[in-house]
């Protein structure tokens, strides 16, 4: 499978105008690739993830194309997207564990979902139980109500649900943030397992936690203020980042072993620009220690090495 996103722009409608949450994003995803999408709050990563599945009332599709396996995804048309959801593109939304209807047994909910896709529950039952077993949930979970499960269990249940129809592309939106540290590892490793077993062909894992991405992602994409800052294989991003923002981000993470008295880490001073009327030129200009005159002109997102693209004039 291949995913190609070209100049995608999705804005939010607000009373004060359009918030340019996603402002021209271009990249591709190869078969079997787990791509981590990281960045601070408001950078547009969740918008990107959500727009590939469902553009809701507040969002406005402005421009850009998304092609999956050569076919264009009609992301601007909710009805047309219906046939792609769950079968080609699927999402594990943020706070998915709260997404299960608390008044229905889980098995019934799965049945409803499958029926809406025209698949009989009975036909899928065997596969469903195999997958539940794989993630460490017994088949009896289908007879329970969501409230009877712990956070980690619910998350794994939703993961099984979202991948039941073997979508080509899976988007995981902050699926580990609300979990305890021990469940986080189980959930993250389950994602990789899904890819290994071929349930899903490629994934976009959205999170602010770069350390988790280090563990499971093949490539990392860093976003800033609605645009892509850098995309490269994971080790390259963590060991040899080229974009100043990526560099500052990576160096501000306290790893086990670093102590305040020995080496005082620094954050990134300032705040991201408002996306209501974003500044022209490079959006990181205000906070960038390397900013110079040319930064008044927006740097293009160009490839500077094998699979390594950066949007910075100073990157080479």
């Amino acid at each position, binding site marked *: 499978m291949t995913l190609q996103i070209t100049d995608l722009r999705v804005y939010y409608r607000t009373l004060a105008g359009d*918030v340019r949450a996603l402002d021209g994003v271009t990249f591709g995803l190869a078969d079997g690739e787990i791509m981590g999408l990281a960045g601070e709050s408001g950078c547009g990563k969740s918008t990107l993830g959500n727009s590939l599945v469902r553009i809701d009332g507040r969002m406005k599709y402005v421009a850009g194309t998304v092609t999956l396996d050569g076919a264009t995804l009609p992301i601007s048309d909710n009805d047309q997207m219906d046939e792609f959801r769950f079968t080609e593109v699927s999402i594990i939304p943020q706070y998915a564990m709260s997404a299960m209807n608390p008044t229905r047994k889980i098995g019934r909910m799965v049945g409803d979902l499958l029926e809406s896709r025209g698949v009989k529950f009975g036909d899928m039952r065997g596969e469903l139980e195999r997958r539940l077993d794989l993630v460490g949930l017994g088949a009896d979970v289908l007879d329970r109500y969501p409230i009877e499960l712990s956070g980690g269990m619910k998350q794994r249940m939703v993961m099984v649900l979202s991948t039941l129809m073997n979508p080509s592309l899976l988007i995981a939106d902050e699926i580990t943030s609300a979990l305890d540290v021990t469940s986080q590892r189980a959930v993250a490793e389950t994602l990789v397992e899904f890819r290994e077993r071929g349930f899903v062909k490629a994934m976009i894992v959205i999170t602010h936690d770069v350390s988790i991405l280090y563990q499971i992602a093949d490539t990392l994409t860093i976003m800033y203020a609605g645009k892509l800052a850098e995309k490269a294989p994971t080790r390259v991003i963590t060991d040899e980042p080229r974009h100043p923002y990526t560099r500052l981000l990576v160096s501000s993470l306290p790893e086990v072993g670093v102590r305040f008295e020995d080496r005082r880490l620094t954050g990134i001073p300032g705040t991201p620009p408002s*996306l209501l009327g974003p500044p022209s030129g490079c959006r990181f200009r205000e906070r960038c220690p390397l900013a110079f005159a040319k930064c008044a002109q927006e740097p293009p997102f160009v490839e500077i090495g094998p699979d390594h693209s950066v949007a910075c004039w100073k990157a080479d």
Partner: protein
Amino acid sequence: MTDPLAGGRPLTSETVPQATVAPGAGASAPSAPAARPARQPSETVSRRREVIHFALRGRKILVGAGVLLVLLVIAVAGPFLRPGDPNAFVGPLGAPPSAEYWFGTTTFGQDVFAQFASGLTATFLVGLTGGGIAAFIGMTVGFVAGYRGGVVDDVLNMITNVILVIPTLALLLVVTAYLSARGLFVEAIFIGLTSWPWAARAIRAQTFSLKTREFVDLARISGASSWRVIFREIAPNMSSYLFLTFILLFGGSILIAASLDFIGLGPTEGTSLGLMMYNAVAWSALQLGMWWWFIPPGIGITAIVGALYVMNVGLDEIFNPRLRES
């Protein structure tokens, strides 16, 4: 946990970087959002502006408020247009509406319009007084039970349940047996004392949920007393809910009063819309085809209560953005 642009409990509609988003049934308190980017002041739309923007555009509110305003004008202007005792016998007996008597006259020659205008005033007063008393009791009980919890909560709950379960009609019959002469305010007080339980329950529930918010803890470790916490921290966050509760109690009081009047348990003097209908039925207005006697008060009651409820829905949509059909 870190939902990028959310201001409230995360749902897709809340990933919009709005000024504030208010989740929860009717409460206006945003809750549990995550780290967000800072924005320049010019970009954020203050909550008040947003509320006013939608208020002026909400059809339901405008229609509801409009109807109420018209009726209020009639009530206020009535005594000037038709001075004198509305129950006086002034005109021809049982006359249909005419230029002189806009709503015609009753079997006894009383001016129906004068009665209507006076009845409206009485109805508004009953609503305000009855609703006001119920609101006061309901809020006190609700806040104290919700904030204190424990034994206090259990006791207040018991009281609430008892009042809820008492058959108000039976109680009223007993009261009327003792009070042979009853005015409007006795009726209003009675309604106020018996219709507060649901409000107390609802406010208690909201208070419970707000009490767990961290700003309440912060107020407590700043040395604020319990009352200060309730009135300065919790209540302002429920202001829209309290307002809506009052509107519902207001409308409810009017409806109860009209029903009581209609079955003859209302005030023994004065007029009200319910009394008008009571009299109309008692004197066979329907059979005699005197539609002008019972239709105006009927429409009047329906219009007030209906307008209030419609306004309530409209206001709820404003205070609770998730209900808006955008």
